[in-house]
């Protein structure tokens, strides 16, 4: 796509690791945080080791620690993405009812989710492409979207085929309505506000005009 090639000339996209590190910067010590499956899980690697951050996993863990050392894996200690994890001292276990009470009851401060699309009004689509042949699977995404105090979306700015994932209206089936507060992409940090999509940060080498050209929804420059 021409828009993409224009931008590509000078900008330096964030890597997945850089994006995770950027999201981690906005998580205050003491926050109760749920990190979605996939890209958001990487955020955990960039939280300062000396502080107390409370990672929640919807399958019944609070105070989740890093991956175990090789050979120390426990098949009954996994996260929501079914990866081996550990529990920090001070962490605890509970059942799915209690876990989703934490989510739905507004006890989780921040949830970081991936997305297929985010709309200008904060609508989120991240569970189904709408492809009639796809097996639908929703997991905890809809509960997290509606329950966490703040939803951060973390995603690549464009699809693999170069289309904007930030859209005026979602064309994919919704996960939650008006729930996203902030979007972190490999190109920019964008707040979803009453007065529109406010761009807070952009990667080096990218102009606001270039970012707008790559984004299907109208943006406001608030850098």
């Amino acid at each position, binding site marked *: 796509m021409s828009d993409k090639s224009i931008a590509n000339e000078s900008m330096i996209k964030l890597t997945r690791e850089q994006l995770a590190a950027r999201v981690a910067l906005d998580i205050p010590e003491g926050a109760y945080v749920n990190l979605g499956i996939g890209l958001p899980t990487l955020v955990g690697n960039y939280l300062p080791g000396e502080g107390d951050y409370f990672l929640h996993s919807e399958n019944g863990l609070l105070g989740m620690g890093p991956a175990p050392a090789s050979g120390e894996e426990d098949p009954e200690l996994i996260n929501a993405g079914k990866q081996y994890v550990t529990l920090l001292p001070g962490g605890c276990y509970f059942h799915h009812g209690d876990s989703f009470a934490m989510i*739905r009851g507004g006890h989780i401060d921040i949830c970081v989710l991936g997305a297929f699309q985010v709309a200008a009004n904060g609508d989120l689509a991240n569970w189904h492409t709408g492809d009639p042949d796809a097996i639908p699977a929703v997991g905890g995404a809809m509960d997290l979207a509606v329950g966490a105090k703040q939803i951060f979306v973390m995603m690549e700015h464009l699809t693999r085929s170069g289309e904007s994932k930030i859209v005026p209206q979602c064309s994919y089936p919704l996960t939650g309505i008006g729930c996203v507060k902030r979007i972190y992409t490999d190109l920019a940090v964008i707040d979803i506000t009453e007065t529109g999509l406010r761009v807070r940060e952009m990667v080096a080498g990218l102009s606001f005009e270039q970012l707008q050209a790559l984004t299907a929804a109208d943006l406001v420059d608030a850098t």
Partner: protein
Amino acid sequence: MIDKSRYTLAESVADIADGAVVLVGGFGMAGMPSELVDALIEQGARDLTIVSNNAGNGETGLAALINKGRVKKMICSFPRQADSHVFDALYRAGRIELELVPQGNLACRMEAAGAGLGAIFTPTAYGTELAEGKECRTIDGKHYVLEYPIQGDYALIKAHQGDRWGNLIYNKSARNFGPIMARAARCTIAQVSDIVGLGELDPEAVVTPGIFVQRVVAV
């Protein structure tokens, strides 16, 4: 470092505002957070709505709070007791409001608040005067009453041990309303007999995970 156990009794209740909804644990005296209630009396907040199973015993604790005229409304299941004369006198004089709630509805309405549910259809009290004026519905041939969540601004509860992340365990039947009140309040203050080091509580046996507790005070 997060240390939820850094508060004195006075500090822990300092920000409770006039008009607050305060959930107070305990069933009889078991699990009653007496020191926190005393701190609340000392603090002076008024026009409180108190949610608790009983409405005070004797002249101390909740009864003393009520006696000082600080409580506008009681939401409870069993105000009348052998030694509930403080509440009884104010109630008969029309100086305190009472919302009488069946004990299980009190529990599940707080559970609904803690779990983010908007309302629940419960079978309890259907066909009785405690359901009068409430929405009812027959589901699969059984009758239900629609009840709404009870959310607290604060919860004052008593636990056995706690740590600086707010994890709690309880003692015997003193557990009663503690865990569900902790979930239903925006700010939960737990008095504990003992603050233990992080990791000393068995992660399989923590009853109230720290996410539901904002302040822990050793008494």
